[in-house]
């Protein structure tokens, strides 16, 4: 299938869905509106809301807050995950001692921590960052741990025979291997950083996309809820695109899935 056909079909799906939504929410079928506007709003109103946000400029402040929280959560969570992951992988005893606790904390649905963080850190950005960190940390931690553990025996022996000291093995073998595992989960961890931020905002805040959605919901402004959702997905897609670019630069040495490089 050519690119143009594919793109046309993709756009067509959106057009059909939006058209159906618009029709069913405004034109009665057998004397009944199938998608009552109170619950479903309609695409025109949602679009109008989005335009209003952007033209008045209110949205930028909220986007900025959510972005800041996501970035902070990602950076802090990744740094912690890399450090602890490395430490555990190189010190099997420490890993064995902490293993049940790591599993326990990881098994906990992170949302329940939100009230605690709100209590401890207030309603500002840090309670959201903390929530994001608990999500990002474990993804990065497990991947780095795995990356250090699964360094090829032969590559390691080769490093030793080439005369590498422990420090040089760290720099030239363990570190790149751990990073490659971490980057392979980059999409997931960045996604979770955003999830942490938005969920945190939704549960209690004064700014951000989650706050915007929560406010709209509070006054039964369904158009506002949908508008918030659309802006949020566009926001995540943009970030994901950025991650793909970074990944392409950093992982040039990795074979692509089809093995042809």
């Amino acid at each position, binding site marked *: 299938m050519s690119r143009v056909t594919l793109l046309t079909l993709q756009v067509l799906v959106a057009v059909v869905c939006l058209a159906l939504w618009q029709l069913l929410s405004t034109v009665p079928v057998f004397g009944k509106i199938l998608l009552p506007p109170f619950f479903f709003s309609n695409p025109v109103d949602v679009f109008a809301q989005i335009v209003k946000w952007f033209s008045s400029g209110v949205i930028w402040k909220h986007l900025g807050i959510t972005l800041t929280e996501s970035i902070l959560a990602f950076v802090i969570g990744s740094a912690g995950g890399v450090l602890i992951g490395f430490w555990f992988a190189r010190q099997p005893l420490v890993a064995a001692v902490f293993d049940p606790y790591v599993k326990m904390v990881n098994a906990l649905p992170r949302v329940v921590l939100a009230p605690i963080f709100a209590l401890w850190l207030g309603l500002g950005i840090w309670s959201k960052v903390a929530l994001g960190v608990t999500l990002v940390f474990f993804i990065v931690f497990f991947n780095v741990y795995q990356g250090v553990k699964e360094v*090829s025996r*032969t590559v390691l022996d080769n490093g*030793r*025979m*080439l005369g*590498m000291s422990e420090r040089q093995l760290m720099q030239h073998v363990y570190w*790149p291997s751990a990073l*490659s595992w971490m980057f392979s989960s980059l999409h997931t961890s960045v996604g979770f950083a955003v999830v942490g931020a938005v969920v945190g905002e939704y549960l209690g805040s004064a700014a951000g996309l989650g706050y915007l959605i929560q406010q709209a919901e509070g006054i039964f402004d369904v158009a506002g809820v949908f508008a918030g959702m659309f802006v949020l997905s566009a926001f995540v897609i943009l970030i994901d695109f950025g991650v793909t670019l970074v990944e392409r630069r950093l992982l040039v040495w990795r074979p692509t899935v089809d093995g042809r490089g």
Partner: protein
Amino acid sequence: MTTPTAVALEDAKVAFRLGDGRVYTAVEKAHLTVAQGEFVAIVGPTGCGKSTLLNVAAGLLKPAAGSVRIFNQPLAGLNRDAGYLFQADALFPWKTALDNVAIGLEVRGTPRSEALPRAQKWLTSVGLGAFANRYPHMLSGGQRKRVALAQVLIRDPKILLMDEPFGPLDAQTRQVMGNLLLDLWNADRKAVLFVTHDLEEAIALADRVVIMSAGPSSRIIGDWRVSLPRPRDIFEVRLDKEFHALHREIWSVLKDEVMKGYAQSTQAAEAV
């Protein structure tokens, strides 16, 4: 005047503790010396512990009994005089071919600005001058072996340990690599310990061919001198009469061991 001994395994015994507590003896009592400038090939059936012996010479494994001497010094820890060419891919996948070769020098503190041009020279001498910026996954199996060879040789080790280095390659590529190895070796004649299961390859390359019995508890059961003239060409040498005579002679001994090794491996498979 006798040439100094580069590697000496004196009654080396190698044993592993298995998971269930039993002890598995891979090599019973191996006595083997490699003189300076000598190319020695170890041939044996699958699972006879020839790679194990090589790891002992490299210092990656400690013998359970006996001793290892490198240039008459007892070996403690890793063998710092040796370069090791592995059977499996051992290049750093996150480094380009050039960086993979240069790392051998950088590790010992050579500045990068000096290491890179020398690495480029080595890549050229293994025929990969134009592939400096490729990552290992973009190279063929044979090309990766060439990079690995350059990576080892750039450090100018006094001893070369090679563990079926051309094993994973196809027959033609193996011969081309064999000739490349001989050309490079001819330049400064390092001591080489070359492990292979291919008797023809062993005779074509080496000064001495050592045969090991089928494992476990394998021993060295034969030692032949190969007096074919050097420099040799792998393609040509196989047509030589002397080559054939030697091959027949060694094979008559090796054949029984190969059959034993094969029988043992099938029994083991049935037991599982």
